[in-house]
């Protein structure tokens, strides 16, 4: 049973979940439900108060180099003097190791990742010169070159337009197809329903966890969000194209 605490305050009171490789897990819950804390504990920023976090059966901290973290937009210093390519290249640092400098191969890799995310040829630009959605994609490109086993996304859909969402989904699915596990903390319930394979409902305690179709239910959502969310059954108006 995993518990995460700030001082004496338990932010995550109890989570017990087993996630298969290649799963896309939506971590949902109201503000202050411990979503961010859970992600930060998995990322190693917070130490669990009790319990353990395993990746492929071994303690996760021993495989830290293979964990990619995409921060919330608000947590990034957009004035920092780095270009898009510099940021993507940071994903290669751990693989490079100490006292080694990124070379031509790493630069080409970074450019290829930017290209794949629709930012080809813009790598030389300063990070403040991109739109919100593009900035998000720079960080996804960084996760991509890191060749992770686990990708952690903290509120990735904030202020993102439709086009960016499409690129986003494509990449998340590509990760999953490669057997990479993706954890998305979000309060965007539409996104969770459409993109995730599993849902972890959190409200300090784990309310529910399981495959999205069986877990993303009105009952579970009500239990997670209390009275804060209106749940409508989905009514098909048009048949969707396959």
């Amino acid at each position: 049973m995993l518990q995460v605490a700030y001082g004496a305050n338990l932010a995550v009171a109890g989570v017990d979940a087993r996630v298969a490789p290649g799963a896309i897990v939506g971590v949902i819950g109201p503000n202050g439900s411990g979503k961010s804390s859970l992600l930060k504990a998995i990322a190693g920023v917070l130490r669990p108060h009790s319990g353990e976090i395993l990746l492929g059966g071994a303690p996760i901290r021993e495989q830290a180099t293979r964990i990619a973290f995409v921060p919330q937009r608000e947590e990034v210093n957009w004035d920092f003097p780095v270009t898009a390519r510099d940021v993507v290249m940071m994903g290669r640092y751990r693989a490079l190791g100490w006292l080694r400098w990124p070379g031509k191969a790493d630069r080409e890799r970074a450019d290829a990742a930017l290209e794949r995310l629709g930012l080809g040829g813009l790598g030389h630009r300063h990070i403040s010169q991109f739109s919100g959605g593009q900035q998000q994609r720079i960080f996804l490109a960084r996760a991509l070159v890191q060749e992770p086993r686990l990708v952690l996304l903290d509120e990735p859909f904030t202020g993102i337009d439709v086009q960016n969402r499409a690129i986003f989904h494509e990449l998340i699915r590509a990760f999953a197809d490669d057997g990479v596990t993706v954890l998305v903390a979000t309060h965007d319930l539409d996104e969770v329903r459409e993109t995730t394979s599993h849902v972890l409902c959190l409200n300090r305690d784990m309310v529910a966890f399981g495959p999205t179709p069986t877990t993303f239910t009105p009952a579970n959502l009500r239990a997670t969000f209390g009275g804060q969310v209106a749940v409508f059954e989905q009514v098909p108006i048009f048949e969707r194209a396959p």
Partner: protein
Amino acid sequence: MSWLTEPLQYGFMQRAMMEVIIIGALCGLVGCFVVLRGLAFIGDALAHAVFPGVVLSYIAGQSIMIGAFVFGGMTALGIGILSRSRRVSEDSAIGVVFAAFFALGVVILSRQGGFNRDLGSLLFGNILGVSMDDVWITAVIGAIVAGILLALLKEFTLLAFDPTMARAAGYPVFALDVLLLLLVSATIVVSLQTVGNILILALIVTPPATARLLTDRLGRMMAASVLIASSCGVTGLYISYHAGTAAGATIVLTATAVFLLAVVFAPTHGLLSGYLQRRHGHHHAHHFHAAGEEVELS
């Protein structure tokens, strides 16, 4: 020409020039990370906290660097540990403890004779009094500090830009943080003789802040900061020689003047350029579109 060459006939000016070039380069380099990590306040605290060490070595007749290094090392470690615990309000704790350290240094010094004269040279530096040994010590320590910083540039950059990723990726974040504070501390210690405790922060913060206005690339910012700091040191020293003003303070004001110039005239981040961009805003938008680049508004 004699304006430039005349001071250099004196040995003390030659040594001061060498010292100020080395110190400028070092402060300019290390200062980039002080600015990017928002450590200006901590840097100031460090500069004050080493003062008792300076005073004790001075009274013992030793090089002031020895005591400063001991206190600087302890302080760096102390701040590192302090910033780890989330309970204490870091800022206040640092403020309380290191102002107290500074007062302690002043109290110790006031027990000695010749208080005022000594206090002046210890607080504001005495660059014209540096020996060739001092220059060598500064050069060696400076080379070590710069060497470590450049060797770990990748890691320090990542830590400054995205500490969460650095942690997630398993870097020894605490050790790197303390190491950076030790490098800042060492920089302050070797620079004390030039500008003293009170003004050292200006030499560490102003050149990088100026450089940041001139470029958006970290590598160029570091290079520009080193150049600006060293040339402001040399220029300030010349001005102080000819105008008969205090060397350390003149160097600081020279750096401040260059900073103000950059605030107004810097290519993209300057006030003037901002004004022109607003006036020609339409023209720029059109240009972007014509070049077929992706423009998104959000």
